[in-house]
């Protein structure tokens, strides 16, 4: 499921693999990512139940969502990336630019207009 892992496996000869470096991913987040991958690979749930499970899975604190999006991007897991990006987009939808800046902890909020 992770293209990064898949690529690593494909490029390194199998007998030399002991561990694949995922140094940018914190262990708590990696645990969640593995949970996601296991669930989606298990084929035990119907599509509808899986969608419900996804909604629950993504219903986390926004800092966890940000960690998840960066990890899913790094590990190149497209379906997880779509799920988390969609959830972050939902958070942005109702907010003013000021509130979005606060959420993403953006300090420099000058736009092109203020410079001119």
């Amino acid at each position: 499921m992770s293209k990064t892992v898949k690529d690593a496996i494909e490029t390194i000869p199998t007998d030399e693999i002991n561990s694949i470096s995922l140094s940018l991913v914190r262990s708590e987040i990696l645990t969640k990512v593995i949970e996601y991958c296991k669930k989606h690979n298990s084929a035990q749930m119907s599509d509808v139940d899986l969608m419900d499970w996804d909604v629950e899975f993504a219903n986390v604190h926004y800092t966890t969502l940000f960690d998840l999006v960066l990890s899913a991007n790094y590990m190149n897991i497209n379906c997880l990336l779509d799920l988390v990006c969609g959830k972050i987009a939902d958070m942005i939808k109702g907010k003013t630019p000021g509130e979005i800046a606060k959420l993403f902890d953006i300090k420099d909020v000058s736009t092109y207009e203020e410079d001119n």
Partner: protein
Amino acid sequence: MAGETAWISHYDEDMKKETVDFNLELDEEIDKDGSAVSVDIILPDDLLERILSYLPIASIFRASCVCKRWHATSERFLLNPSHLLPQKPWYFMFTSSDEPTGHAYDPNLRKWYCIELPFVGTSNWSISSSYGLVCFMDNDSSFMDNDSRTELCLCNPITKSCRKLQKPPGMSSDYGALAISVDKETHDYTVAIVKSKQVPGNFFQWDISIHIYNSKEEAWVTPLTEVLTGWRGGEESVICNGVLYFVVYYTGGVPPENRHALVAYNISNQFSQASLSFIHIPCSLTCARLMNMKEKLVMVGGIGKLDRPDIIKGIGIWVLRDKKWEEIVRMPHKYFQGFGEFDDVFGSSGVDDLIYIQSYGSPALLTFDMNIKQWKWSQKCPVTKKFPLQLFTGFCFEPRLETAP
């Protein structure tokens, strides 16, 4: 681009009143994590773009106001519109009788925005829209003068870019119908005007002329002039799949079948002389509104009573397939009643899969989604009726940044 910012600031004020805080613990949590690295710093541009691709266009405008980087990323993203999720079309409602301001309804976010059109005009115009561009034609009584002061204007209501078009040649007319079609790939556009003028001294005969403007050539041609007996053109027309359709009205005494008929004229074939072909209307209508829904011709019609065809008893939606009308749906009675008073003539406009219907007497707006066959009232318009005879009209358009007149 200053115009765009002004539009956003207009609408931001509306937003502040209605924004619901999505994550209620937000404020406290941000203070706690003050020492953590700002996620924005480590969020790569392509990831930010991916997040933007899930947003409705109005949210992307707001995102572009967050900071310089988001502005640059949003702009870059919007220049390539294929990234966007399919957007439901908006509806602009004239809420002032003499100013070009009005309110636009965004069904993607279910919000109303106050917007100003980039030119001075009123709601007494013929309006046609296609792929983000809206064309306005003055239907004023100055039409009746020999000095035909037809005002013709093309604009993008989102970007505010605007252009006056040269008038079609020829004499003035009693009725004029307007239609525009934009090519999705090249962004070239075709404007068609159907003029009807009563033949002097003859009550039943009408001079019909079709004028076509092409943005590539920047010139008008008049490929057809014909005299119709017993029928006249009106103000309702649309271009669909290279064919110009317009509604004609019976001017004789008792009509053969119905008082309305549809005329089709093929404008896509430049070289051969096309002629007008008549298509029957399915039943007795009080009024007919035409729209191009994904290159299918759809008609929303007021259904008249058998004995009193000028009194509306319902509203139906039909689609034209192989020159035959197929009924899609009838408006359920509860929605029909929900408008309160419904005149025999009403406004309706639609794009892609969404049809808007409004009664001229109130700002109530009803939508019908052709895809899921669902009727739904819009969010209540923030404008209320100020005086008993106030009329509300509007038009449907696609919010697009990439088309310009």
